[in-house]
């Protein structure tokens, strides 16, 4: 069953494009990554799912129900952590969390204590005395305290130190193992790589592709580094499937997707000093999606 199903979702802010014909779906129980650079439309998509904004056209359903029409009902089972967190400044952390909990039925208030303990959050401080990272922790606890079936994270790790990031990821994984579905939006690929099974890549408001992270890394791309003894003939590698080709003094880098024998053929007779074939990082694959249009 699909927990999230987005169908041709389009949002224009006046003439300004938000997203265009975004479609993808998230299965129950998966941790789904949503990556793209700033301004690509990640937050717009997420805000439409939460009915904070109204789509220009297209639709989205969560748990099989229309996001706008059944918004308040659906949101009972959603935990949301925005990229920037703001709370009522004059309240104490505990008061904000209790207020948050008061919106849900059957909340186990002990969860506030236990989650705060894991995240090392002081419940007796006032919100306006908290650092950015600590506010983020409040966000994490308030997003998870009602045991949501769907967790939506919009660039959640900003402001968290690496140790806290790790604890946060552990929390998310634990929630996921207990059955929660996760939509994880980020522009930091290594964290998506760590956590997610599938990713949707968004660029300039449209989905470029939805892929399995494993497939993306293992089966499709190879990263080549060639050290030359002599002069590099770039045109020699004018081959379909080669991208991100860069020349740096005597070194040639490129990504290749396709039949590896094609490259081996080309390598014959080349005067090489060294040859390196690696798995590309997600960053490198990702850059390729973004630069595709700029490169010949």
């Amino acid at each position, binding site marked *: 069953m699909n927990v999230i199903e987005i169908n041709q979702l389009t949002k224009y*802010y006046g003439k300004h494009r938000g997203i265009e014909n975004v479609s993808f779906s998230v299965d129950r129980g998966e941790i789904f990554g949503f990556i793209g650079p700033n301004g690509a439309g990640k*937050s*717009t998509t997420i*805000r439409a799912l*939460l009915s*904070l*904004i*109204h789509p220009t056209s297209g639709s989205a359903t969560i748990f099989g129900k229309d996001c706008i029409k059944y*918004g*308040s*009902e*659906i*949101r*009972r089972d*959603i935990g*949301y952590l*925005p*990229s*920037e*967190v*703001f*709370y*009522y*400044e*004059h309240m104490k952390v505990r008061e904000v969390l209790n*207020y*948050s909990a*008061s*919106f*849900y039925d059957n909340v186990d208030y002990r969860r506030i204590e236990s989650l705060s303990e894991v995240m090392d959050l002081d419940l007796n401080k006032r919100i306006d005395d908290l650092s950015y990272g600590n506010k983020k922790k409040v966000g994490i606890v*308030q997003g998870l305290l009602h045991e949501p079936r769907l967790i939506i994270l919009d660039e959640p790790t900003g402001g968290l130190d690496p140790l806290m990031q790790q604890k946060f990821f552990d929390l998310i994984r634990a929630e996921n193992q207990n059955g929660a579905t996760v939509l994880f939006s980020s522009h930091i690929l290594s964290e998506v790589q760590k956590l997610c099974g599938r990713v949707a890549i968004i660029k300039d408001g449209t989905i470029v592709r939805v892929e399995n992270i494993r497939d993306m890394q293992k089966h499709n791309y190879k990263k080549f580094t060639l050290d030359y003894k002599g002069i590099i003939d770039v045109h020699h590698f004018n081959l379909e499937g080669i991208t991100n080709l860069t020349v740096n003094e005597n070194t040639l880098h490129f990504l290749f997707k396709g039949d590896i024998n094609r490259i081996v053929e080309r390598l014959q007779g080349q005067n090489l000093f060294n040859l390196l074939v690696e798995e590309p990082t997600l960053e490198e694959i990702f850059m390729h999606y973004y630069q595709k249009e700029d490169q010949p």
Partner: protein
Amino acid sequence: MNILKQELRMGRKALVAWCISLIAVLSLFMLLYPSISDQLEEFQQVFQSFPIEFQQAAGVADLDLSSILSFYQFALTYVLLAGAIQAMNMGVSVISAEVREKTGDFLFVKPVSRNRVISMKILAVLVQILITNAVVFTAALILVTLLSTDSYDFKLFTLVTMSLLFLQVFFASLGFFVSVFLRRIRTVLPISMGVVIIFYIIHLLNETLKDAKLGLVSPFDYFNLSEITKNMNYDSLNLLLWFVLVGLFIFLTYTLFARKDLPSI
């Protein structure tokens, strides 16, 4: 109910400050009464020596300082003005606060509909207006009773004092509407002060012009204190207009806000 509780909690300090200020304004004027009541004749003469236009603009043309209630009306004018600003302030800020303080991403992803949020916020403002009115009414009653030498008409006192409630409800609902109509509100006080003072100036202008149509523009004219004294009741056309406008503002608040996109931070 949790939203109502939260709103009342957050508005608590401002409410106390406003109530104290309103009482202070009223007391300040009312406590002048004993000292000038001996010289009422002279005061009346001073006022009457002014050009009639000035008298009208200052709101003293029909002023009859001979009784405590007419002096009370003079004092109450300033309470009405301040109370209108308070109400409009609450109206404008109660919904826009979630956007200004960027807490909208907290509240509006909770499992409550926007209509319910609006209802609770309107209810919270109404409760605060009722508290303000109860406080002002009590304070005014004490002041007038203590300072009056003769008996006074309690019905008239009630009618005159209750105009604060009507004005506050009007300006609060105008405030709701303005706050959902404008795209983004950064500061509240300039908007609420500006709007209230413009309406007040229109009212003062109309004191001179006495134009029936212009009288429909400013809510301060709907509850013209000297008219209320003359007729011993509110004007029914004005009351109807008040009712229609308040209803319209609140209806538009719901419909506009339901369609509104909450800007991302």
